[in-house]
């Protein structure tokens, strides 16, 4: 370390005065002081600040992935009767237990949940920092945020409309649509290899039934567990299709399973669940809804 330059008595006076004068220049004439008068002025927080959550009710599908991933167990699903959206399930948050890790925001498959820059959550009443879903609702917020997650348009299949005509597979220039037979149904279902897809929309144009639509999907930070279907246990009870928040499960009739009833008429054929895995968000609701061990989902708690 070099020896410090020895100051004479003028240096002792004028060097500090020069420094403080510079500070006055910076804080009085050019700009403002560094401190912020908190309740009156507020800092411009960065948009990635983790504060109180907002929830876009229209984007949220009620998959409860946020509740699943929450490490402090501070979120819960509420059943709400909404005049516009009908019967829905939406998460509520207890801010008193929240550790603002942001996992719920990252895991949200439709980017409906966001953390705002609002940090003034203190309250004299513990009940007031428990926010129900309706208090979190802000349908306009999600459009304003610049989302860091990559968004890409992806053709999404509505299996109810699909007739298995193979036109989409023939049209696809990347050869990423393969027609796969659905076991014991006797129909073909297009399966789209999403990594190859370039979103050229040719399959959407080609589809005569308009079963394919382009939809914005967000890239996930997490590896999503996929449901494994065991056909032999399925009774066709429709519970998984009802439970699925992303409409990825369709019930299809299996021809050749009709039984002859006592009055001689044929009953309706047995049904089975068919999964469109492009839509699946990996929430495990079907796995929990199924009472016959027909669906397995490794990595998801019952």
């Amino acid at each position, binding site marked *: 370390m070099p020896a410090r330059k020895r100051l004479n008595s003028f240096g*002792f*006076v004028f060097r500090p*005065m020069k420094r403080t004068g510079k*500070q*006055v220049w910076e804080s009085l004439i050019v700009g403002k002081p*560094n*401190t912020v008068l908190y309740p009156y002025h507020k800092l411009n927080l960065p948009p990635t600040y983790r504060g109180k959550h907002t929830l876009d009710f229209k984007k949220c599908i009620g998959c409860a992935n946020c509740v699943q991933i929450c490490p402090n167990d501070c979120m819960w699903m509420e059943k709400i009767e909404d005049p516009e959206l009908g019967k829905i399930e939406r998460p509520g948050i207890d801010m008193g237990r929240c550790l603002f890790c942001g996992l719920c925001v990252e895991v949200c498959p439709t980017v409906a949940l966001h953390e705002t820059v609002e940090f003034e959550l203190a309250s004299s009443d513990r009940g007031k920092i428990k926010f129900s879903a309706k208090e979190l609702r802000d349908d306009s917020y999600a459009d304003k945020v610049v989302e860091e997650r990559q968004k890409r348009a992806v053709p999404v299949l509505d299996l109810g409309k699909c007739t298995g005509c193979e036109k989409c597979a023939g049209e696809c220039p990347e050869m990423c649509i393969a027609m796969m037979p659905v076991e014991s149904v006797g129909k073909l279902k297009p399966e789209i290899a999403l990594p190859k897809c370039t979103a050229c929309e040719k399959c959407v144009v080609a589809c005569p039934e308009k079963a394919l639509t382009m939809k914005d999907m967000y890239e996930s930070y997490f590896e999503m567990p996929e449901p494994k279907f065991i056909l032999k246990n399925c009774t066709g009870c429709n519970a998984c299709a009802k439970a699925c928040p992303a409409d990825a499960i369709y019930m299809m009739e299996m021809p050749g399973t009709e039984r002859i009833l006592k009055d001689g008429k044929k009953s309706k054929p047995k049904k089975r669940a068919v999964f469109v895995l492009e839509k699946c968000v990996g929430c495990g609701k079907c796995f929990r809804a199924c009472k016959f061990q027909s669906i397995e989902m490794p990595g998801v708690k019952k």
Partner: protein
Amino acid sequence: MNLFTFSYGIIHWLVDLINHLWYWLGDVLPWQFGDFFDAVGEFAASDGHITVMAILVEVLIIVIIALVNVLNFIWIDRKFMGRMFDFYGPYYVGYRIGGWLQNLADGIKLFVKEIITPAKADKLGFLLGPIIFVGSSFLALSTIPLGRDFGISTNASGAGVPGSALIAFAFFAIAPFSILICGWSSNNKYTLIGGLRSAAQMMSYEIPMLLTVASVFLMAGSFNFMEIVDAQHDVWFAIPLFLGFVIFLICLVAEVEIQPFDLPEAEAELVEGWTTEYCGMRFGLFMMTSYLRGYIGGALATALFLGGWHGPALIPDPIWFLIKAYIVFVIIEWMRWSVPRVRVDQLLNIGWKRLMPLAMLNLLIAASLKTLGWF
């Protein structure tokens, strides 16, 4: 028309007005009181009485101006210090005028507080100390004119008081004794150390300061503020006697007892030194008076070195004077919040080994300039 004739006129007019009422009352009341009424009315209308009352009005005007300046000074000090340390300074009280009312709010708070005298304190000294401190500081204000026609020391002729500068310095130098009295009578080790430090400090700064002032007297050829300022009509004394001006500023800082020479009330070592035992408005008076002394110091530097009220005629004389005093004060405050406190032995070294020879040199320069006939 100067301040004296102005206040003389006001008092004369008031006395006339009241005398009308008074004589009318004498006529209305029974006749036995007539002589008494006449005598009182004649006394009120006499020249001596009106002169005394006019001087009182002058004092009132000057003191009010000084007190308003003190409020400004405290505000400037706190705001400037705040910006220097990168925070806002006073802000809420008087939001629209930059927190200016904060001083008044603090004053009110200090008024409401209880005044406590320590049980083992010397009661008389404890009471007398603040009185001498505040009174001598106000007396030092008495002879400093703000303009040719604006000051207590002006009289009907406008010539000012002979020897007014000497009187100002004499009153200005009383304060260390009152500090010693306060420190001694409080019966507290910190206050005692503070008071004795004040006495030791006084020895170091008073002599160089008076030597530089003597050089000014030599250049101007007078002890009168009026003539000293008039002698600077062409050239301010700060230019030929720049060395003296710097020495005077340093000594002024020591005289006013602000950092780096605030040894008697060193917050860090002596817990506010000689003011430790004082609370409530007594402390408020000390605080106010220390800034008043800052104002007096700025005024003295202005009158002796910076050409007093001389300046372009665009701005009135007293305003010129105040602007210069404010600039001196701001420079002193700038130094105050930049420089650390010196030790007692360092202060004595500075006073006796550095400033004293330089002040002698400055006196020699002034004498040679005067001998050469340049002034």
